[in-house]
């Protein structure tokens, strides 16, 4: 598994392999034109840099069916090539991460195959995007969970391969939990169908009576394409009490459409972090809310007044910043209910808990923002706005633990962020942008710390890797699991989390005997002897991480005391 230097350009694909690909999918659906390939290699999002290019694929293919995907995978096996699937391509996780990769672009597999209203599931192909799935399911009074990359992303990709949480998790859980039957092309080209699909009983269950390999196919974070290609899957649907075809005026902040009956948006404020954690946990335990999350005031500023954060006057606005921080213990609740009684119940529970914890809540209709908040969250149309303020963002790896541990850990994240703001490396968003939302019926909370930067500015891109490492260190100190994707870090931290890397590797050897899947982000070994970057900040953090990893490592018998 070799990174090939700054240009990350592999030698060209051989003619014989290319001809085989052409025969598999048709010549018009294969390319090895360098400028076209670079469209798959430019991946600034979730790229720790300093370059924003990932590896250029040696070819891109556009299969139209599971059979064609199989054929492509088998050709890669035959010629000793790697492959990696891409759907909508939200982030560097979707791009090739090593040399000699054939990128399997799944855009031609974009159908919604079935919406089962009675059993509340939808069957999708990879490139049916969230916006499309929502539009069709809402017509039938149903809704689906959309990951917080938004309506442009693929629900299948999120459910099968890549993390998958969002503020709608309070009602619709997260991607991993919504996955039912799956059709999966393994890295050797074999097709396997999971759950009821595997026993010929339809799509409704991922756990049998056919084979249940949901844990294997994605684990918690997902294999980021390292386990093969998922060509169809069924996803759970949930109740949608709003109109079948909501069509707001406007695109984003100009959104205008009345709230549906029995729907509301509330904002609540608390005196301190603990009150926030206690109250919102209690509210969510009661099953309240359709979308719910703790926004950071900094995040709101980046969306609403992005220009302000670049100005010198903002940097010096000490008291204004403090005043804004005073409102940081806030929480947004979007309610969508079926009846006046249900709405009244949900409001009463919220009011009770908010009051009990010394907070206050406000109906957002009083602010004039209720419609915008409600619809942009329900339609997941708001998330790309994070690109607006600086051009790019990254979040310190999302963490999923108990709500209290997440909320109470965020001050440490804010300290790290403030340090890097002070060094001038990232956008000054007041360092209070920690975002939290809950899933798994409130037993799990998600925490992300958005970091806005301009990926076109080398001084800023250089800071991203050290920041990410510093967050990983903080997470380790808090005994959180880490969303680690680099081979070096996996090797370092595998022993702290039950040697999971050994198990993953073992499974990988069985399903991918020739090592054809691009599993750099999931299963790859670090390259021996590869020099570390000469950035002092990275070297310092590497030492700190190695130290804490050693202290936390399990023995073969289990974790240390």
């Amino acid at each position, binding site marked *: 598994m070799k990174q090939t230097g700054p240009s990350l350009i592999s030698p060209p694909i051989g003619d014989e392999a290319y001809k085989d690909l052409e025969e598999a999918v048709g010549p018009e659906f294969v390319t090895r034109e360098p400028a*076209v390939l670079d469209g798959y290699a430019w991946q600034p999002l979730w790229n720790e840099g300093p370059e924003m290019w990932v590896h250029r694929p040696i070819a891109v293919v556009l299969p139209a069916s599971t059979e064609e995907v199989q054929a492509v995978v088998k050709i890669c096996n035959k010629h000793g090539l790697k492959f990696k699937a891409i759907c909508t391509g*939200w982030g560097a996780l979707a791009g090739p991460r090593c040399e000699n990769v054939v990128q399997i672009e799944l855009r031609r597999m974009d159908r919604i195959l079935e919406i089962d209203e009675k059993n509340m599931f939808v069957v999708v192909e990879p490139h049916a995007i969230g916006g499309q799935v929502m539009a069709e399911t809402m017509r039938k009074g149903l809704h689906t969970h959309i990951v917080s990359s938004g309506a442009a992303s693929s629900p299948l990709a999120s459910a099968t391969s890549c993390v998958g949480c969002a503020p709608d998790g309070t009602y619709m859980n997260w991607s991993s939990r919504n996955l039912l039957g799956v059709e999966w092309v393994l890295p050797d080209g074999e097709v396997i169908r999971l759950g009821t699909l595997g026993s010929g009983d339809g799509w409704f269950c991922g756990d049998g009576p056919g084979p249940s390999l949901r844990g294997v196919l994605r684990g918690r974070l997902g294999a980021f394409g390292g386990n093969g290609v998922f060509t169809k899957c069924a996803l759970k649907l949930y109740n949608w009490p709003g109109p079948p075809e909501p069509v707001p005026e406007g695109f984003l902040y100009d959104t205008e459409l009345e709230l549906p009956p029995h729907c509301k948006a509330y904002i609540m404020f608390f005196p301190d972090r603990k009150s926030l954690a206690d109250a919102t946990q209690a509210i969510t335990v009661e099953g309240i809310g359709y979308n719910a999350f703790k926004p950071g005031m900094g995040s709101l500023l980046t969306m609403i007044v992005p*220009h302000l954060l670049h100005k010198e006057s903002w940097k010096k606005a000490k008291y204004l910043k403090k005043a804004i921080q005073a409102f940081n213990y806030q929480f947004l609740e979007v309610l969508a209910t079926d009846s006046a009684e249900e709405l009244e119940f949900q409001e009463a529970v919220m009011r009770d808990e908010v009051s009990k914890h010394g907070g206050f809540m406000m109906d957002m209709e009083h602010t004039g923002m209720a419609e915008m908040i409600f619809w942009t969250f329900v*339609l997941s149309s708001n998330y790309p706005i994070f690109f607006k303020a600086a051009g790019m963002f990254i979040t310190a790896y999302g963490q999923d633990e108990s709500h209290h541990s997440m909320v109470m850990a965020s001050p440490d994240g804010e300290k790290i962020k403030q340090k890097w703001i002070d060094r001038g490396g990232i956008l000054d968003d007041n360092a209070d942008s920690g975002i939290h939302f809950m899933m798994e019926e409130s037993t799990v909370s998600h925490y992300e710390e958005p970091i806005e930067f301009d990926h076109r500015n080398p001084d800023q891109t250089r800071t991203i890797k050290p920041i990410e490492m510093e967050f990983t260190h903080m997470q380790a100190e808090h005994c959180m699991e880490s969303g680690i994707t680099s081979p070096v870090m996996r090797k370092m931290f595998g022993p702290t989390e039950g040697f999971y890397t050994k198990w993953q590797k073992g499974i990988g050897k069985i399903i991918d005997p020739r090592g054809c899947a691009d599993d750099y982000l999931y299963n790859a070994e670090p390259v021996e002897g590869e020099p570390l970057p000469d950035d002092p900040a990275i070297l310092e953090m590497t030492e700190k991480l190695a130290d804490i990893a050693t202290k936390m490592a399990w023995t073969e018998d289990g974790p240390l005391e």
Partner: protein
Amino acid sequence: MTLSDYERDMEGCSRCASCKWVPFNQMRSWRFAKNCPSITRYDFHAYSGGGRMLMGLSMVKGRSELTDEVADIIYRCQLCGACDTACKVYRDDIDLSEVLLELRTTCVEQGKLIPEHMMVIDSLKREGNVLGEPKAERGAWAHGLPVKNINNEKADVIFHTGCRYSYDRELWPTLRGTVKLLLSAGLDVGIAFSEESCCGGRAYEMGFRGEAQNYAEDMLSRVKASGAKLIVTPCADGYAHFRYIYPRMGKALPVEVMHVSEVILHLVKEGKLSLKNEVPMLVTWHDPCHLGRMSEPYLPEWNGDKIMRTLDRKRAGHNGVYDVPRELLKFIPGVDLVEMERIREWSWCCGAGGGVYEAYPELCTFSALERIEEARSTGAEAMATSCPWCHVAFREALAETGDSFPVYDILDLVQQSVGLSPETSEEIQGGERK
């Protein structure tokens, strides 16, 4: 400006894929969720707005070269601007449409020309129009109409006909009827007859800036000499080019430019035209790209970091002409409007723009048929529009497939309501007045 001048815009692409879809708040179905004919037809990322920017970035960074295949991809784009509008929902610092124009110019500068475009340019040089028709016959459509010749008479209003209307005889009844309406409402209208030339916008879109510059200068001098106070055009392409491309080239026209639908609406509101006859019809409205988002007036380049660009300096398609035709349809008794899913800033392109009609008829047909299917899905009996190129794209796509679906210019519906019978081809005699 050159492609390199937009390096920061190209690098700005986060690859979020918003450019491939209608704005997400407006997504109403699986079927009509896509906004870009090119990526919808060809699927590789390079055919999308973002993918095109990344091809440009790759070349600017020296990672790849402008090959014939890359040039072919660059040209398989209608420059309809839907990607730009979608991108700008979230971004202030990327001018996607500008990058696409620069890619065209780069192709021309590096000699990556395609024969079909060369024929258009040759026709422009020889005959002053994009259709290869004789220059001398440009004013033939106006035979017998009491319009002034602005080459030797002063007129308040220059009626710039445009290439397609001037030579497409099937459109002449629409055109002549419209001029009759303007005259009947008391407007002092003049045309340039054979001296009228193409606006040059198509040449600009194809990447031939020098040619476009020549035609802009020609137009500018004619307008200055005429003493006219207003330019009215029925050609949506020309309208967009006058409002956007001319100022971009530093050749802004010194008088107001209006699309004829704007003028007609004005006359109706003033009571100078009476839309009295019932036109019982359920219609859907196709927003031409060049009347809509692409006609948004030019805004000077933002000096400095576009991250700091203010919204009033961001050209995002909102200031195109969308409400005028809808309002006009409301004035026509009996006409009911039913909207398609992809309208206004996120309208689907007919397929004819950017040199695609001339060079890639299959892509043009694909795009037009997609739009017709969307129009049909509304239950409308007919589609109305107000761009001769859209009209022709739909007409030819339907003819090619043997299908039928009524497509009207809004001006036809206005004329029906006014009670003006369309002239037959026998009634329209060829030959220029002078």
